[in-house]
């Protein structure tokens, strides 16, 4: 487990740097065409990046919970749910029990957020809560607590807030440009050659494609983390069937989208929150197919270790594994 945490931390850092670079590039072109000085644009992007990063680090979880319209509950509101979260925190050895949130939405979904195991939260939709048995609820909460334990939550909140920044900046810039912005630039340079046109086209393309790039970057790493959280769930509950049957229930009604979900928060959920119509290509989806996840969990058999999950995963993927080798050794 520990090695896995380390490699996840490194990946988070790489992702933050890449997203930051993308944001700076967007800022550069915004500066060039909308303010008339690329330095100004870079400065704006750098400030946005720093502010968003700090906000994500200190307030990311409350922003995401707020955006998702989640409300915090106490033990008296739902003793069984609360107990299950506490049980799974014990199984994972979390230093502090996560806060528990309910999202008043009939869709079937759940997510975890926070900064580190000392400051974290789990949220579940009212629809899913009502539909699960205690064992299934345990599997789902163990999956979410797996995200917290594997340090996925900080990565997810920082990445999704930065993705949000890129999306907002480029959306704003392209709108201004198409609505007749950039005039100032044309006046300044007076005419302008073919070279400038090319740069401008590249800039426009970048502004349009940046959100897509950022999202692909985000998604590529988030799918693997879903498998790892499934493996952690089996390890904590020692009962993979709980999560498997919960996932199956979610699959039957995955056509119902979560109302408050958006592109930036989608990878946080346990299954794709947009419903069936969004499942386009494997590389562009936030989550691995549910049927595949269920199949892996079911083929683990009696053994519930990370090694057993790795074995089951390999059978489905021509010998390619998903759990880091060093994590297998220590478990």
């Amino acid at each position, binding site marked *: 487990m520990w090695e896995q945490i380390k490699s996840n931390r490194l990946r988070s850092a790489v992702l933050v740097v890449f997203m930051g670079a993308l944001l700076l590039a967007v800022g550069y072109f915004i500066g060039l065409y909308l303010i008339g000085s690329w330095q100004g644009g870079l400065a704006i992007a750098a400030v946005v990046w720093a502010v968003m990063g700090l906000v994500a680090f200190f307030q990311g979880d409350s922003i995401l919970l707020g955006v998702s319209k989640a409300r915090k509950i106490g033990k008296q509101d739902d003793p069984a749910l609360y107990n299950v979260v506490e*049980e799974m925190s*014990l199984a994972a050895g979390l230093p502090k029990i996560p806060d528990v949130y309910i999202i008043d939405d009939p869709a079937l979904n759940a997510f975890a957020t926070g900064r580190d195991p000392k400051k974290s939260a789990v949220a579940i939709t009212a629809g899913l809560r009502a539909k699960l048995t205690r064992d299934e609820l345990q599997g789902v909460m163990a999956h979410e607590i797996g995200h917290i334990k594997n340090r996925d939550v900080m990565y997810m909140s920082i990445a999704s807030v930065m993705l949000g920044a890129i999306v907002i900046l480029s959306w704003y810039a392209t709108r201004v440009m198409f609505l007749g912005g950039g005039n100032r630039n044309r006046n300044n340079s007076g005419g302008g050659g073919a070279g400038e046109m090319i740069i401008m086209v590249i800039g426009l393309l970048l502004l349009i494609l940046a959100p897509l790039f950022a999202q692909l970057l985000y998604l590529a790493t988030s799918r693997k983390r879903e498998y790892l959280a499934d493996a952690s769930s089996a390890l904590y509950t020692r009962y993979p069937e709980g999560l498997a049957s919960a996932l199956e229930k979610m699959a039957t009604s995955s056509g119902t989208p979560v109302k408050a979900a958006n592109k930036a928060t989608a990878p946080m959920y346990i299954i794709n929150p947009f419903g069936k119509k969004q499942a386009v290509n494997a590389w562009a989806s936030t989550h691995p197919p549910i049927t595949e996840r269920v199949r892996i969990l079911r083929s683990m058999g009696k053994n519930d270790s990370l090694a057993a999950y790795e074995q089951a995963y390999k059978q489905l993927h021509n010998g390619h594994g998903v759990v880091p080798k060093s994590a297998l050794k220590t478990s």
Partner: protein
Amino acid sequence: MIGLFIALGVVVLLVVVFIGIYNGLVGLRNQVKNAWAQIDVQLKRRYDLIPNLVETVKGFAKHEREVFEKVTQARAAAQGAAGAGPAERSQAEGGLSQALGRLIAVAEAYPQLKANQNFLSLQEELTSTENRISFSRQFYNDSVLRYNNKTQMFPSNVIAGIAGFKPGEFFEVTSPEEKNPVKVSFN
């Protein structure tokens, strides 16, 4: 001169490696201690729950005196073993689990009890407590395994031997009944 530097370098390197492994061992040992404390918390939770549970069941099933006595005795025995090591303790707690299992089986025969709101919430608490005990035991045993591996594998075993790190004791499940935790739900 060069020989001296090389010797010095080797010594410094050894010291650094020693410190690293030593700190790793201390970290793992602390985790074992923490996990043990957590089991303690959960077992206490169960002691606190029992009088309430017994009272509630008594209200509907006065005649099952023998069962109540068994539970009360087992609870006292378990509390008496609270300061002992994992082996002795797990014996006493196993006895308590057995007695609780019987109490729940008795309650099953009283339909009014099963409909009682107070009993239902106690039932959820008992389910959760049993789960907490087994999950914290699971985490404790995993921690002990990791710590013991470190104290027995080369090269950390050398340092563990010098610094006196003793292997941890597992919290084993003793009775066969306890391997199948108390089933508290009625279906």
